[in-house]
């Protein structure tokens, strides 16, 4: 075993190069002014203060709102699907879970483009509506479009951890609950759901993380005017060129996610 422990060393070196050093550089950027030279570094909180301006705060709140909504929708859909899948016999479950993950094999960009051809003004859905003799509805570049894209892309990340905790659950807990007089509904809320909470939390964390930092989906389905945290960071680095402010926003986002995870883990621990 001791010998094998040495195998971790390349990984440590690798993470140092691609994770730790960029993180330090990000911190450096976030706390300095633009136009610094290597010799003359001036530290400042200016970048963080700037984030408190209403324009940016609104972007943050919008991201948060959309993220939480995505999580909520994914949770309801994902739990339902995971629960249904877990009722089948094991071999069928494996096939169903495979089907859930199939979309993940396809590039996310492609999947998102597919939604454009479905939702756009002369897309699939509107063609269907006009066939039925209904007025076309403009769906692209709305919260609805972004939401649908996010939910569809992130749903597997909710289903899989919940399914795992449901399928490995000892069936005798359910029988014990019936035995003690609880009907199926009471058993679900008092036993099954409670025991699946670790899976739910993992799913919630994953989906929240993904949806609060995504920028491809809002860009494609929300249009150029649709700005979320991910887009804000992207534009600071790519088009505006203000790496300092971009770094500061990234750090704020990272800290928020970190605290969200810590808080949820704490809720989980308190519950058990």
């Amino acid at each position, binding site marked *: 075993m001791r010998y094998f422990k040495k195998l971790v060393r390349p990984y440590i070196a690798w993470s140092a190069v691609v994770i730790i050093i960029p993180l330090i550089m990000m911190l450096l950027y976030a706390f300095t002014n633009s136009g610094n030279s290597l010799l003359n570094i001036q530290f400042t909180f200016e970048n963080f203060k700037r984030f408190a301006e209403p324009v940016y705060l609104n972007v943050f709140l919008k991201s948060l709102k959309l993220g939480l909504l995505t999580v909520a929708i994914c949770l309801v859909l994902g739990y339902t699907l995971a629960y249904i899948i877990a009722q089948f016999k094991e071999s069928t479950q494996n096939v169903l879970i495979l089907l859930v993950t199939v979309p993940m094999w396809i590039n996310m960009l492609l999947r998102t483009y597919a939604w454009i051809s479905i939702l756009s003004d002369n897309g699939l859905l509107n063609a269907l509506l006009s066939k039925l003799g209904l007025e076309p509805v403009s769906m692209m570049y709305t919260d609805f479009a972004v939401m649908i894209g996010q939910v569809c892309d992130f749903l597997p990340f909710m289903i899989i951890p919940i399914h795992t905790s449901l399928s490995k659950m*000892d069936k*005798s*807990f359910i*029988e*014990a*609950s*019936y*035995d*003690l*007089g*609880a*009907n199926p509904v*009471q058993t679900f809320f*008092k*036993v099954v759901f*409670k*025991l699946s*909470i670790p899976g739910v939390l993992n799913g919630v964390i994953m989906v929240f993380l993904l949806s609060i930092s995504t920028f491809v989906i809002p860009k494609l389905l929300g249009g150029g005017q649709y700005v979320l945290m991910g887009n804000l960071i992207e534009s600071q680095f790519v088009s505006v060129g203000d790496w300092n402010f971009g770094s500061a926003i990234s750090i704020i986002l990272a800290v928020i996610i970190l605290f969200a995870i810590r808080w949820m883990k704490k809720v989980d621990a308190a*519950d*058990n």
Partner: protein
Amino acid sequence: MNTLIELNNITKTFDDQQVLKGINLKIYENEFLTLLGPSGCGKTTTLRIIAGFDEPDCGELLFGGIEISKLPPYKREVNTVFQKYALFPHLDVFENIAFGLNIKKTEKSVVKQKVERMLELVGLSGFEKRDVTSLSGGQQQRVAIARALINEPKVLLLDEPLGALDAKLRKEMQFELKKIQKEVGITFIYVTHDQEEALSMSDTVVVMNDGYIQQIGTPTDVYNEPENRFVASFIGESNIIEGVMIRDCLVSFDDFEFECVDKGFKDNEDVEVVLRPEDIDIVSPEGAKLTGTVESVVFKGVHYEIMVKSKYRSYMIHTTDFCEEGRRVGLSFGPEDIHVMWKMV
């Protein structure tokens, strides 16, 4: 005694395998009944049908005279102690025991009082706030019993509840379970493959094998008067010998005729004879009908297990007297030590 549960011709098949092939059983009020048999004999399935987790394919299940085989488990007046206890890991000891009462929306103060009384009954007072996963096997066992009994069921079902405990704890719990059963005065249906457990705790033992009930009787009945070869060999150790019933109270085997106390067989019917190892005495070979040579002697703690090779077979004998290997000995037993059984087809 009043009949509480009645199973009439119950059958059950899982994936083309018939696990129960027609079970007929009456269970009375206040009795400690044990379903005893090797694994796969259908004893657990029988229990699960009574609990409501499995539905019989055919047959009737009467509870207090009412057919209940289609009734879901949460509507039955029975509670179960599961093999691995199935205590809810997200609830503490108090919440686990109070589960059934909380489902019934019992008043908080009543719940508290009843849980305390239950903890006292199973000897776990003061454990209310403990995490169930931190308890030892024996303590979890007690919590499981308390959780079931607090609902005041008419019947408590126990599915090999002592299987996971070590030998010493098993003995203690056997004693305690019997005590609890007498204290609460309800029917216990106990499933086990351990014959000693069955004999020492039960009022009635139901020996099962291969989806059939082999014998129903008191512990002394099934031990002393086994009805067939399976029961004789499964419960305790025995010498099983093929013989012929010459007439009432006279049986012949190994070239000799022996007086016995069994009746009701046809004259000259082929039968099987059970001789318990502890019922055979080693005597001097002169004048003994059966003689042989001591083949092996194994010290078993309380007694020696001696194998004596006679003309037709080896006899197993349990005795506290030592006897060296290679000696010629005679075997002796009285008429009441011979148990004659129907020959199994």
